[in-house]
């Protein structure tokens, strides 16, 4: 194989690119932008994590402990918003920036300047979300779903939140346009759409979802904004509006959003598992079609988040059946991964451990999702800790574990240095155990009827809450180890090989050294 190296790379206009902070502010390089996305996402992960620890510390015992109820409500709201829009989504956009050009043999993203803009929109949005905690009236305790009519009455922090959502939405849309255009138009010669790595496919599908639903969320929060300040009554029943309409619009965005988070995670897992099984993915084509059908179905099931608003039983039945139908393509994916592992030459380095942790826990989260899709059960479990447990199994053990696995997988490629395998395994096992300590017991709390988003609870829930809070602190502290591992890898890791994982076969491993040059594939790679 021919490594396409342009080692003296810095020529022409790039010879005098700015150094120091201006290098990062003005960069249009997909690798720089990917790095910034990942660090931003980790910072937001810490901020959202601190909020989670405030929540779990408050819930350590019945009664009020450390925050007043308004602050608690704000913590649940901004923990959700920051984790979804600030941590998980930018993390996978970071992966996309780093990997997509290298995996398809393109020199950079299609619109490098727009790429820079879409990253630099994120910090102001994050500042708005954090500043919302400190304005008069405190953070808006409306929940990350921002349901009307509460949002219409919320303090001015609601306006900051709405603007933050607008900015984050614009950033996501620009990022998506960039990703789709790059993959459609800039593949190396000979690389057909059915030859691109599955990670790229999952991002094509995710990007289309983002372009389709982020504007709908923008519309929903715009309506909230005009209801608050400009006398409209989209969601105000007194003016002829309907708060239930907000829920329909929000979840028309919200359910595809679930897959916007999950599908790139599927892509990362689909790269890791074949590499450590030393087998090609069991069914590439079926994986592409399953992912696409999940994306299509995600538009048709939104009202399963709102069974209890009082909809006709026919509608409940439709949304129930449609939701259950999603289990079919998801099952195709899970069986695909299992069949890839089947009789593979397995090794269990940290990325593989996170991938297997993902597979095990995400499947559990999927099953509790199936439980919740059944109307009569959901009516019982709606807004209980069962729901909290369910979506943390798919968001944390699904998306976050996949991101961790991806970082361990590609860190040798990105930095040219190998992380400490022992510490990586420690990080996995601590995360895996404390994650389950935190969230598994929440299933029982939910089944016993403990409502979510309430700072106080009855005595009978006390023991499980103690366990959950201890798990949360353990999980949070384990992430300091992750930061240490990444920093020490960058500073003093042992040099990594070009193809650090011999089972990995996409272009960044086969055609580029570790670390890749600042500008890679300025001439398209020659594909075998």
């Amino acid at each position, binding site marked *: 194989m021919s490594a396409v190296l342009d080692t003296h790379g810095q020529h022409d206009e790039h010879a005098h690119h700015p150094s120091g902070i201006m290098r990062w502010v003005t960069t249009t390089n997909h690798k720089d932008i990917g790095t910034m996305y990942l660090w931003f996402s980790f910072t937001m992960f810490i901020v959202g994590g601190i909020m989670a620890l405030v929540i779990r510390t408050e819930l350590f015992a019945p009664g009020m402990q450390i925050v007043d109820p308004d602050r608690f409500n704000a913590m649940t709201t901004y923990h959700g918003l920051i984790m979804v829009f600030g941590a998980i989504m930018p993390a996978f956009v970071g992966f996309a920036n780093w990997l997509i050009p290298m995996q398809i043999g393109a020199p950079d993203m299609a619109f490098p300047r727009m790429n820079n803009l879409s990253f630099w929109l994120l910090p102001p949005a994050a500042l708005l979300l954090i500043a919302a905690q400190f304005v008069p009236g405190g953070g808006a305790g409306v929940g990350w779903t921002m349901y009307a009519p509460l949002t219409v009455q919320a303090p001015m922090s609601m306006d900051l939140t709405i603007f933050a959502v607008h900015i984050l939405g614009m950033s996501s849309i620009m990022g998506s346009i960039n990703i789709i255009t790059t993959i459609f*138009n800039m593949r190396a010669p000979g690389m057909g759409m059915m030859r691109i790595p599955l990670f790229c496919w999952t991002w094509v599908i995710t990007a289309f979802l983002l372009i389709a639903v982020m*504007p*709908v969320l923008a519309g*929903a929060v715009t309506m909230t904004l005009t209801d608050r300040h400009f006398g409209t009554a989209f969601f105000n029943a007194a003016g002829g509006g309907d708060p239930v309409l907000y829920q329909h619009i929000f979840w028309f965005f919200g359910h595809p959003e679930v897959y916007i988070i999950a599908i790139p995670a599927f892509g990362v897992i689909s790269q890791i598992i074949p590499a450590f099984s030393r087998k090609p993915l069991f069914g590439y084509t079926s994986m592409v079609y399953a992912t696409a059908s999940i994306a299509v179905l995600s538009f048709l099931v939104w009202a399963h988040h709102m069974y209890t608003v009082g909809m006709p039983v026919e509608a409940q039945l439709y949304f129930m059946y449609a939701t259950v139908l999603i289990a079919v393509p998801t099952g195709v994916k899970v069986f695909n991964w299992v069949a890839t592992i089947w009789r593979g030459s397995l090794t269990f380095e940290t990325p593989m451990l996170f991938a297997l942790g993902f597979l095990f826990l995400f499947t559990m989260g999927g099953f509790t999702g199936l439980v919740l899709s059944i109307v009569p059960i959901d009516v019982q479990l709606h807004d209980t800790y069962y729901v909290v447990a369910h979506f943390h199994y798919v968001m944390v053990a699904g998306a976050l574990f996949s991101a961790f696995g991806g970082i361990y997988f590609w860190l040798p490629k990105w930095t040219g240095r190998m992380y400490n395998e022992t510490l990586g395994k420690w990080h996995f096992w601590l995360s895996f155990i404390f994650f389950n300590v935190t969230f598994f017991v929440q299933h029982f709390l939910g089944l016993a009827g403990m409502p979510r988003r309430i700072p106080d609870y009855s005595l009978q829930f006390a023991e499980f809450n103690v366990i959950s809070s201890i798990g949360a602190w353990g999980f949070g502290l384990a992430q300091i180890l992750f930061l240490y591992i990444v920093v020490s890898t960058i500073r003093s890791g042992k040099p990594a090989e070009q193809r650090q994982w011999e089972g990995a076969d996409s272009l960044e491993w086969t055609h580029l050294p570790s670390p890749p040059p600042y500008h890679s594939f300025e001439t398209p790679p020659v594909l075998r």
Partner: protein
Amino acid sequence: MSVAAANRRMLVKLVVIAVGMFGFGFALVPFYKAICDVTGINNLVKRDAPVNTQVDYGRTVVLEFDANTHGLAWRFTPVQRSVSVHPGEMVVVEYEIANRSNVPVVGQAIPSYGPQVAAQYVRKLECFCFSQQRLEPGEVRRMPVQFVLDGGLPPEVNTITLSYTFFEVNAAAGAPRAGGAG
């Protein structure tokens, strides 16, 4: 077409989709209203039809109506021979009387029930038998009986006959006497 030009075309298409979806979010507002109107759900202006939870739809009792006169020149008939009612349901039936004589007549109707035990379960809210009726010569009048069948009606009673008999109060019209029982 160069890659840059192809990229720009793609950019335009994708921006159009994004802008279109922003509009779609707002289009959901009238769409939602239309769906609610067509299906009749969630109409905040239309008053909900009250549902009477006291009605026992599992049980049907037949009421037969009978009418007699005693010593008056009146034609007295129930408008309907019988109705099927559920206990707890509000029922209105009508009777018609006609004075066939050429003098004013005052009459008083006395009800009786078959079986007799049913008397305490037919709860009348309005009845022509609550007061004396005075009819001018040749006058025809329709009069309602409004009642609710009590749910405590013994289960073996499936048919109730409600029979009214009109008695003349006094031969000389006017000067009504106190009287008249429900």
